[in-house]
Structures are given as C-alpha cells and as structure tokens.
C-alpha cells in the first residue's frame, strides 16, 4: 500500500502530477496512511447495499422483497454486500 500511495501522491518526484482520486478497499490501511494526504480530502465510503439498493438488487434477480426472511440470520448481513450477493443466492441451500 505504501508504494502505490507514494506514487499517487506524487511524492516520488517533486515535479510529478499527483492524482486527485483514490479508490481503495483497504479501509484499515487507509486510516493508517491518511496523514500522507494532509488537506482537502473528502472520503466517500461505499459499503453494503442500503435498503433502496438492496430492493433494486432483489428485483433484478426477480426475488421477493422479503427475501431476507428466506435465508439464515447470519447470512443476512452478508447478502447485502455486492461481492457476495450472487454467491449467497446461488448457495442459499448450503447456508448454515
């Protein structure tokens, strides 16, 4: 992480053009490294589907709006995450 951030901030070369947007999946690492970028930062967090997004995702899969009731409780948080949405649906019958 340190090396790409060094490049992103233009710290490798005082004349280099730094970028303006960073997208990272490393939330904890970013918290540790955020001081490298001193001012003018706006963080935008993209997490699990909110209720409105989740309804759209279910509709696209032609699933009922009460789909959460059809899966075990410990998977209800997981299914809201875009990365696992399809997997949870696909392996619904294997969920514990």
């Amino acid at each position: 992480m340190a090396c790409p951030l060094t490049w992103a901030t233009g710290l490798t070369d005082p004349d280099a053009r730094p970028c303006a947007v960073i997208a990272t999946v490393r939330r904890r690492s970013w918290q540790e490294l955020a001081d490298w970028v001193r001012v003018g930062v706006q963080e935008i967090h993209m997490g699990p589907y909110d209720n409105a997004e989740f309804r759209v995702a279910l509709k696209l899969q032609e699933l009922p709006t009460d789909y959460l009731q059809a899966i075990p409780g410990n998977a209800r948080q997981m299914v809201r995450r875009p990365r696992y949405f399809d997997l949870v649906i696909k392996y619904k019958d294997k969920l514990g």
Partner: protein
Amino acid sequence: MEAANGHCRRQLWVLATSVEVNPFQEQALRDTGENVGLAVLILDSSAARPELPEIASIVALCASPPDETLNALSRPEWRDAKLRVNMPPLDEARDELEKIRALPQFTEWLTHFRATLTGLPLWSPGIDRQNRRLSQNLEADADISFGAEFDPRKLVPRTVGSELNTWFSAAMVTSDLRGQCDMKAGSTPWCVIVLDGLNEYAPNPDRWLAP
C-alpha cells in the same frame, strides 16, 4: 518553470524557434513536459523536414493560414517595437507565404503536421481515452481484467454516486482539478473512495456455509 508555477490550464508546450533544437535539448524538454503532464510540440528550423527542408516549421505554419497571419501582422500590438521599422509591406509578406504554399510538398507537410497535432499526448484526450478503455474493459472482458464478471443487466445504481457527482462538480468549480497540475499533493482536491473493507478482510465462509 511556467507549468510548475501554477499555470494549470495549459496542456501543451510549444517551442517555436528559428534555430535547430539539438537532441539533448529536445529530450530534456520532453522529459520535463512528461513530468509535469504537458505534451511538447517543437517547431524548430528542422521540424518541417523532410517535406520542406528549406523552410523553418514556424514559417510553414504561418503560411498554412496566410490570411490569419497577415491579419495578425497588420495589427500593431503584434509587432515588436524594435523590429517594426524593418517590417516588410504586407503585400510582400503575402507573396512570400503564397510561394511557400505553392511548394510541391506543402500539402504533404500540412497533412503530416495535422497528424502530429492530433497525436499529441494531451492530458484531457488522454483521460478520455483511458476512460473509454476502462469502459470497454468493463463491458468486454471484466472477468479477465478485474476477476469478476460485469453484467449491465444486473447493475445496481449506488446512491453514493450522488456524493461523487457533488464532489466532482465542486472540485471543478473551486479548484484546479481540470488542470490537475498543482505539484503539491497537499493542495490537490482529493477524493478518497473507500470501498467495502470486506474485500481486504475476507470473511470465513465456514461462518455462513453449512458443512
């Protein structure tokens, strides 16, 4: 120095000179331009070769739109005060420009010059090309490029998109994001998109899959 001092809207350096720029000078200028994100166009005495070996490229450039060149020459504010006394009559200048345009390989030089201009690695077209390439990658072979298939039929619009649009609009109005050539990282309008941390700390599937 000019770009480093904050003239952020510029995307191109043009060096117009009546002498020939040697390869070391040319490389140094191109390296500096690359470092500060500016394309470099050199119009020296040799740039019109091989089509117009006897004509300096800046002269050939003046001949490509003769009316505009003559219009500029006719305006006093364009004339150097010291050189004004030696300024030839506009009719003579027109004749000279027309002679250059009539050279057999002038059209060939002009075509080559236009191709050079459109091929310059300018910042904005570069961004556009990169965005188009990324879009094509997403649509055509996301599975290969990103390890996950992209199916637009399954696209779920994220509400966070409005936050991004708001930040982008504000940055375009209040900052140098368009030019993006402020050399100090601390004064750049930063936006950090922190995606779902589960990609970094993957969950144990044993917690949610039955044995």
